């Protein structure tokens, strides 16, 4: 059973208490200027966006099958049993493949640093492991960000849409996108308005499957291809040996004939 966050944009009042709590939890700077920034960055893991009096949070989606963890050559990312996708800075070599691979463009980089780290929401793994809720969910005054079991939150989201169909886009974002995520979103306007990728474009296939289809062939490919290459070498050089031996024989025959 994995934990998840349900963010209901219709309940959000845009107070940015989640931003403040996130900054405190992750020891990030926070000021009026940073509060006014409407993009995620290495010092802002989550942001509350405002568009025509509507709000929307952006944060790492904590995919069930995270692309970042799949592509990292040194395994610096991994999905914990509780749900959070966490990052081990020690392993990281800074190739930034995670940033390129993430369909939600969540990992951010310390571009100005001389020993840069990848930064993103890690869903307060220590708190979650200790049975607490995430800092943002705890700080939310209206319950717009809610922490709980993923299955329970899905049921709750479904019932909210059913009870108030006029209030919502009839879709739980994150339920099936790229194989499902541990952050679920509800909204009254389309998710693309706030920069979320279109669900149809993302598809329901877990992203690691696209590479898995190729990578899974490699263990069979290596011995087969080596065998073919070795075989070709043997045949082409065998031909040479045979030709040489035949020439030798002919020479001997001729010598015999001459004698």
């Amino acid at each position, binding site marked *: 059973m994995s934990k998840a966050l349900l963010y209901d944009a219709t309940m959000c009042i845009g107070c940015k208490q989640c931003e403040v709590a996130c900054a405190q939890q992750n020891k990030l700077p926070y000021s009026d200027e940073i509060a006014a920034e409407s993009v*995620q*960055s290495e010092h802002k893991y989550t942001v509350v966006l405002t568009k025509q009096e509507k709000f929307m949070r952006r944060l790492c989606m904590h995919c069930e099958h995270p*692309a970042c963890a*799949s*592509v*990292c*050559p*040194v*395994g*610096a990312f991994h999905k914990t049993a509780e749900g959070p996708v966490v990052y081990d800075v020690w*392993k*990281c*070599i*800074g*190739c*930034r*493949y995670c*940033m*390129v*691979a993430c*369909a939600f*463009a969540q990992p*951010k*980089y310390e*571009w*100005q*640093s*001389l*020993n*840069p780290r990848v930064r993103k929401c890690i869903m307060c793994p220590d708190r979650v492991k200790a049975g607490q809720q995430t800092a943002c969910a705890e700080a939310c005054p209206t319950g717009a960000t809610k922490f709980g079991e993923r299955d329970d939150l899905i049921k709750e989201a479904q019932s909210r849409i059913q009870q108030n169909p006029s209030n919502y886009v009839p879709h739980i974002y994150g339920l099936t996108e790229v194989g499902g995520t541990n952050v679920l979103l509800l909204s009254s306007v389309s998710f693309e308005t706030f920069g979320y*990728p279109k669900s149809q*474009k*993302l*598809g329901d296939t877990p*992203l*690691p499957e*696209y*590479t*898995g*289809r*190729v*990578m899974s062939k*490699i263990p069979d*490919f*290596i011995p087969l*291809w*080596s065998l073919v*290459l*070795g075989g*070709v*070498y043997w045949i*082409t*050089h065998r*031909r*040479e040996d045979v030709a040489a031996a035949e020439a030798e024989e002919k020479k001997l025959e001729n010598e015999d004939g001459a004698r």
Partner: protein
Amino acid sequence: MNFKPTLWKVVFVVIICLGIYSAYVRYAHGLGAVSNMSDQFPWGIWIGFDVLCGVMLAAGGFIVTGAVHLLNIERLHSVVRPTVLTAFLGYCLVIVGLFFDLGRPWFIWHQIFYRNPHSVMFEVGFCVMFYTTVLFFEFLPNVLERFHLHTPLRWVKGIMAGLVVAGILLSTLHQSSLGALYLIMPSKLHPFWYTPALPFFFFGSAVAVGLAMTIFESSLSSRAFGRQLELPVLIELGGVLLVVLWVNALLRVEDFFHRDQFANIVKPSYEAYFLWLELALAFVIPITLLSFKKVRRSPNGLYLASVICLLGFVTNRLNVSVTGFETWVGHHYVPKLTEFMITLAIIATGFALFGLAVKYLPIFPEVQSAEEVEAPVEVIASNAIPAPVFVEVENAGD
């Protein structure tokens, strides 16, 4: 040896100085200061050109060693050394490039200790590591012969068959895997370039580029050092290149057809312009040129066709790594001047090292060149050094 400052030497020194300055900015102020990479564009030309194109341009190594040692095509034997040299230099420079691009290059060895077998990058990293080692041994005979070390030379020649097979295996894997790097981004990469066939296209284009590069470097070194391959060999390579280009082109067309992209391709758009450029340079122009027997049989014609073909596939790699992401990101990425300078300095270093190797190692078959014959005569005339000194100098350089 003469130290006359020619135009190219001056250009080289300027590029290297600017490169050193950019390297200083990179290590003193970080990636943000030296490049235009950002959270939206985490990979710039250091990946798109230095790595993707670098590995592709070095593909000649496995194709030519395979043709000569594996298929036993003896008449191509003279091509092996220059292509192995290019490949070895190419891979070394790709690794040098990574030391600029990686955020934490001092931890590059983590690759060996913390392995993630699901990662395409992990596979590419290991293949590049092993293949550079293979290329080192394939290159070693040049050095051993130069210093007349016959015993180790015999050892290396004894394991050559194994090296060649390993080289082809590793190259097949990582040339295609560079394309597989992009398979995980179906929603981000533009449909002109995102296709499940990416690994096949990357491998196919590497074969074409490997051949084109062999023709290119032979023509270039004939201009610069008066050393080159025999024309019949180049003509044969040109013929094979034509076939490989046709196969590549037909597969690309089939893929566009299969994914219903034809209507989008002919419609003018930002991406379409770049795709047209790529297809024209990689396929239309070189295939047309090489189809004429007259072009295929002239050194200049072959040179021109191979250069255009190389530019085409470089465009292809940059389209996959940069152009294909611009719509998704919503803005353009143009490399910073310092970013260009590092790439240019790496290329310049490659050319210089190739020149040095050709000069001092038995890379090309003919040893005596027009330039070398001329030089001593000139010196004798001007300085009137006694002839015996010359014999010594000549021996030292041979």
